[in-house]
């Protein structure tokens, strides 16, 4: 008989399973269960009730009195599949009247599934092997990690933080470092930091994957190894600040690393740093852009970290640029569909969710859609192109770099 081991479920998660009032507030706003599929089992309430039912069948009072009930394998497989269809966007956390931290619940649920041999999805295997073998999810050699910087003008010097002391360590992240379509994000970030005369450097080829993908898919032990390696690098570089341009890296280093080791430097997202640079006058945005722009809140930046005003303040600094909001914005923002390993395991579902978000952006009347996360950028850009939308996809740092005073 398949015996579920609940020893990987957090005590607080187990309490939360009982604390769910089953009100269903989460079911309609859930991008995967409520909006893209209308499938109760994928919604937060559906997952909570199913997992509760399964572990109660083996650990509940009835199980204690009459013996544990066998759980059919297909039910377990279905639960696992449904759990991995979640983008961990955190919309359910925003709306939950019982204040349940569902983000922690889903990540912990995946850890539990992995522990019981039910996760991650087979589609994640390649990604995970790549991280283990190459330190990045894109099967690219380590020696190519800092190659993006070669495209920088000669006058911009990116220090090697392991060799030269620098104030700010720019943690580039795998996607911006390797993906040819996202490299501009890293280049623009470096240009902005350089323009503001920030003393910055990177870990070069020594930078490892932050481990976000591993954490989001429940592979905590593998993620811990990545975290420990990076934390050791941070100690060697000893900067005052670590800045990231990737929302996923930001969440991981800021929220998850402290659970696995001590991160001494202050961790900032680039939008926070640009705000500081604008406030101090070190960065001036003076080039006019007569356009309407709308901002997509990346889940890892917004709901997971509460950074809603920072990107909007930057956009308001650009002369001529008009910021229009989508109907669902800030904590109510829809997900782009790429997070939580969904794009890898369920690309069609990710596409559906992304489509709904592009609908929102088009309805806002904006000419341009901007965001501050490489995954959201990639996912939304693909959808814009696929449906021939008139929207122009931009990264926020691309906008800032273009609006910078010469």
């Amino acid at each position, binding site marked *: 008989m398949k015996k579920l081991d*609940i*020893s*990987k*479920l*957090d*005590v*607080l*998660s*187990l*309490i*939360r399973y*009982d*604390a*769910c*009032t*089953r*009100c*269903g*507030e989460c*079911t*309609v706003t859930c991008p995967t269960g409520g909006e893209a599929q209308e499938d*109760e089992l994928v919604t937060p*309430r559906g997952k909570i009730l199913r997992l509760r039912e399964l572990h109660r069948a083996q*650990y*509940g*009072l009835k199980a*204690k009195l009459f013996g544990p009930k066998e759980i059919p394998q297909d039910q377990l497989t279905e639960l696992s599949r449904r759990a991995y269809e979640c983008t961990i966007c955190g919309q359910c956390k925003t*709306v*939950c*009247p*019982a*204040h*349940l*931290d569902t983000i922690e619940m889903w990540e*912990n649920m995946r850890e539990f599934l992995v522990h019981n041999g039910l996760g991650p999805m087979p589609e994640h295997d390649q990604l995970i092997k790549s991280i283990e073998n190459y330190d990045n999810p894109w099967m690219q050699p380590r020696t190519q990690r800092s190659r993006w910087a070669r495209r920088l003008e000669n006058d911009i010097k990116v220090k090697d933080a392991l060799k030269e002391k620098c104030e700010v360590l720019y943690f580039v992240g795998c996607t911006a470092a390797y993906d040819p379509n996202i490299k501009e994000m890293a280049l623009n970030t470096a240009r902005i930091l350089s323009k503001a005369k920030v003393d910055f450097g990177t870990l070069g080829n020594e930078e490892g994957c932050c481990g976000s993908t591993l954490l989001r898919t429940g592979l905590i032990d593998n993620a811990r190894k990545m975290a420990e390696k990076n934390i050791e690098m941070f100690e060697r570089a000893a900067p005052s600040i670590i800045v990231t341009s990737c929302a996923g890296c930001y969440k991981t280093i800021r929220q998850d690393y*402290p659970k696995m080791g001590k991160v001494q430097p202050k961790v900032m997202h680039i939008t926070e740093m640009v705000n500081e640079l604008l406030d101090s006058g070190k960065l001036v945005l003076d080039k006019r852009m007569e356009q309407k722009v709308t901002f997509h809140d990346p889940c890892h930046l917004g709901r997971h970290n509460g950074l809603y005003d920072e990107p909007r303040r930057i956009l308001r600094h650009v002369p001529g640029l008009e910021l229009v909001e989508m109907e669902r914005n800030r904590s109510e923002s829809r997900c782009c569909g790429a997070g939580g390993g969904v794009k890898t395991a369920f690309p069609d579902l990710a596409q559906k969710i992304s489509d709904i978000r592009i609908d929102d952006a088009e309805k806002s009347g904006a000419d341009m859609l901007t965001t501050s996360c490489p995954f959201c950028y990639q996912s939304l850009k693909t959808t814009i192109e696929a449906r021939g939308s008139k929207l122009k996809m931009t990264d926020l740092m691309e906008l800032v770099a273009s609006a910078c005073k010469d």
Partner: protein
Amino acid sequence: MATDRYLSERATLYVPFFSFIALLCAVILLLPYETVYIRDRTYLSLFLVVIVLSVAVFFLGTLYNFLMWMRGKGLTTTPERRLIGFAKLAIISLAHGRLLRATRTLLKDALYLSKLKERSVSRWFMHLMILGGFILMFILDLIVTFSLDILRYQPMIDETGWAKLWLRDFGFDLVGLMMLIGLIMAAIRRSILKPKIVRTELPDAASILFLLAVVLGGFILEGMGIAGGIPGHDQNVEYSFVGYAFSLVMPASSGDWYDAAWLVHGVMSALLIAYIPFSKLFHMIATPIAIELERLMTDKEGSA
């Protein structure tokens, strides 16, 4: 050695726990209940047996759920020992200035349901009526029992005493009415309006129907008492405004069935208590704990 430790860890939890239940049951059984409106004391005895058993089942079920939570991640000892550790931590944290904050959290997030109010005023009102009514009913019950059977407080005993009129007669009807309004709203929502987010399964329907039967049964009982002129229901009846309204449509002969109806109402109320740990109603206990524990951990992380 290992067996000794195993037993001692369990004894540390179960001896005080069962002593507490035994003490509580003894208090319930030993109270004089001189002012309970019932003519046949056999019914009272039957009710006391059921309530004692129900209270025991409630606490045992709650403890079982607590112990199941303790089986979660990081268990290095027995769930019992871990639970004792958690309890100690909670007491220490409350004693070290967290009591006020915990109370505020309980009132604002778990009772007043501030977040639900932001999302849907009608659902917030419905839930507040049910939960608020339930909790106020429990508090009133404690106050009345304590002042009647232990303090022998005259204004609670005298037919014209302020406490009898306002707390026993008016107070109970008011909180009962709150629950009734909330439950009717919930029943209409689930059975007629059926919004997309509502999912009604047997346990959900059972919880509402159970509560509805208890609350409605209480008013019917009171109506029977007033209509039949049962002692305790024969003066100043207008203070029991809902029961009085029910009595207007009841024949005087319904008073003949008063004792039996009293027992049915009492047994159902007792069973409702026993049902809580095994139903969705357990969220009344789990939700405040989850909220406060999470705040505690967030504060700890923040100060680390």
